[in-house]
């Protein structure tokens, strides 16, 4: 299968007065075309930083190194103007809390028009509106929504409007950042089905779906990447990650999820003790999960050397020294 996005040893830091916060510190992954890659992790693990930086690196974010190949082109080397035409039309993002970020003084129609014009100067207004009208109908929104102000819409409707706007130009890659988190379970399901339908119809090619909720990812993702403190912990297919996790962190994360046959009275779930490290001026050496890890397979090595992503079998990557002797360990 074709690879749409390939990220190699990517580093993005935050500039602060006290030094660098190493939010993304050497991440490797790829997204195939026509797949949903789910990214999960605790708050502060860098999942939003990663997705935002792929679209636009702006202060206080700084690009520290690595390559990002999108459709064969390294976008970290592109100039501002080239990136502007790529953004939104080829790779689009639904940022966290996007539905509350629409300008309250503009009608939906105007918001759509302004946004499209910003990235594509040639397109005519009627054309934009007619595409939007068609898409709105498909997601069960009536046409007059175009003439409404954002405050006049309910949360579920706003989320649908945002999804239509973000995919209007049929982007190849859509990054969806926590789009289901603020929604009720029924709207969650609707949003996800909508996304799947957009993929079936070819409005979007591939999706990076970011959430802290593994049970949502289980419903939609083809593959899952688990992040911990700015590093990749594990990558595998959805079934592999949920049913047979390898990294100690993933194991504990999956263990802590509520399941429909577990009750406090009968069996107690366990959380993960401790908390993620502060990434300000954090040394790049050593495994970042070391402090909380119950395994510490080789304490000396774990503490001092950062585990690379071992490919234990084709497509299955784990960053843990316990798998150094895996099928393709280094």
């Amino acid at each position, binding site marked *: 299968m074709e690879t749409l996005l390939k990220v190699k040893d990517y580093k993005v830091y935050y500039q602060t007065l006290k030094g660098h916060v190493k939010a993304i510190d050497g991440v490797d992954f790829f997204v195939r075309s026509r797949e949903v890659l789910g990214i999960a992790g605790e708050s502060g693990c860098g999942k939003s930083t990663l997705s935002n930086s792929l679209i636009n690196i702006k202060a206080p974010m700084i690009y520290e190194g690595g390559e990002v190949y999108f459709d064969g082109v390294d976008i970290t080397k592109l100039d501002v103007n080239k990136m502007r035409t790529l953004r939104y039309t080829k790779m689009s993002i639904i940022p966290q809390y996007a539905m509350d970020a629409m300008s309250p003084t503009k009608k939906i129609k105007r918001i759509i028009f302004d946004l499209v014009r910003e990235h594509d100067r040639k397109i005519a207004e009627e054309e934009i509106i007619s595409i939007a009208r068609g898409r709105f109908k498909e997601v069960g929104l009536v046409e007059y929504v175009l003439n409404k102000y954002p405050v006049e819409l309910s949360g579920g409707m706003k989320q649908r409007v945002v999804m239509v706007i973000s995919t209007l130009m049929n982007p190849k890659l859509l990054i969806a950042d926590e789009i289901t988190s603020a929604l009720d379970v029924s709207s969650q399901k609707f949003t996800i089905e909508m996304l799947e339908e957009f993929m079936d119809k070819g409005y979007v090619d591939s999706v990076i779906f970011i959430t802290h909720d593994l049970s949502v990812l289980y419903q939609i993702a083809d593959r899952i990447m688990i992040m911990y403190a700015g590093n990749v912990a594990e990558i595998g297919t959805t079934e592999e990650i949920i049913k047979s996790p390898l990294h100690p962190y993933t194991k504990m994360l999956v263990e802590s999820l509520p399941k429909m046959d577990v009750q406090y009275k009968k069996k107690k779930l*366990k959380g993960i003790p401790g908390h993620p490290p502060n990434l300000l001026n954090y040394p790049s050496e050593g495994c970042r999960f070391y402090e909380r890890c119950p395994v510490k397979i080789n304490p000396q090595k774990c503490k001092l050397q950062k585990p690379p992503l071992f490919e234990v079998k084709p497509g299955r990557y784990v960053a843990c020294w316990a798998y150094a002797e895996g099928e393709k360990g280094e």
Partner: protein
Amino acid sequence: MNEVLLKVENLSKIYRSGIAAGGVTTAVDNANFEIKPAEIVALVGESGSGKTTLGKLILRLIKPSLGKIIYNGIDISKLKGRRLVEYYRHVQGVFQDPFSSFNPIFKVDRVFDLIFDSYLKEMKQKKRELIANALEKVMLNPDDVFGKYPHQMSGGQLQRILIARTLLLDTKLLIADEIISMLDASVRVDVLNTLGKLKDENKISVIFVTHDLSLGYYISDTTMIMYKGNIVEMGDTEKVYSNPLHPYTRMLLSVVPTVDRKWEKKKEEELFSLFESGKRRIWNGCPYYDRCPLAMEVCQKKPSLLEIESGHKVACYAAIQSKGSKAEKTFSSENEK
């Protein structure tokens, strides 16, 4: 044991909106239920179902429009002065956003100081010891808490500090309003387990308000499902989940994401039934009428909450009709697949 800690009788809260239009929103509509000592009740509903309003009514943050809340035999709306303070010694709340419950410029110790200032003046000498005790009960190390600022702690820790704070008082009933919805999966469980432990060891009752059915199932003894201000189904958690009777409960259970099973793909027309249809809600009718796949003519009159099996009540004509005939065990059978 037939003790009742809290009894809610015909409780309603009606908000009026629009001065000229005379619009009326019934946030809580004729709620009736009881809470026993050492019982965890999960109050489940989507946004706008009135679950938070119900919690606020019990905390006396707002006044009921109709009906009564009776705590230990006393109507709480009649409480004043010292007896109201006494009530708050027993009934406390913890809310959704732990970060906004703390003032960021003060150390976290302050939330304990406030309690001592207003409720425990006579015990100030033993303050540190008492606080340390309470913190240990919520599985926190006192040394990690004293002298810290809110930003130095995780959301889960802050939430447990707030629970510890209620323990300093003689809390019998804790209203926990979405206390874990902002927390990471890895710390959620710790907070839930804390609630379970307090119930077992301190015999505290908890009203656990949540929109997440899987978390409700894990911790609760009793489940109440709310829809648009109405309690549509309530009963033993085990019974409600293994044999959901109200169509709304079934819909909710079918869309809960878990790692046990994948969603069935719904047909397009079914999908839109997840939302409110254009059908007008019928005044005095079943609140779920406009979304319900089983809606019948009788549903234009509001069904009352009836006991179908022991410890399991539902407000639905269709469910009452099929009583006797085996109700479908939708959720558990899907689970087995």
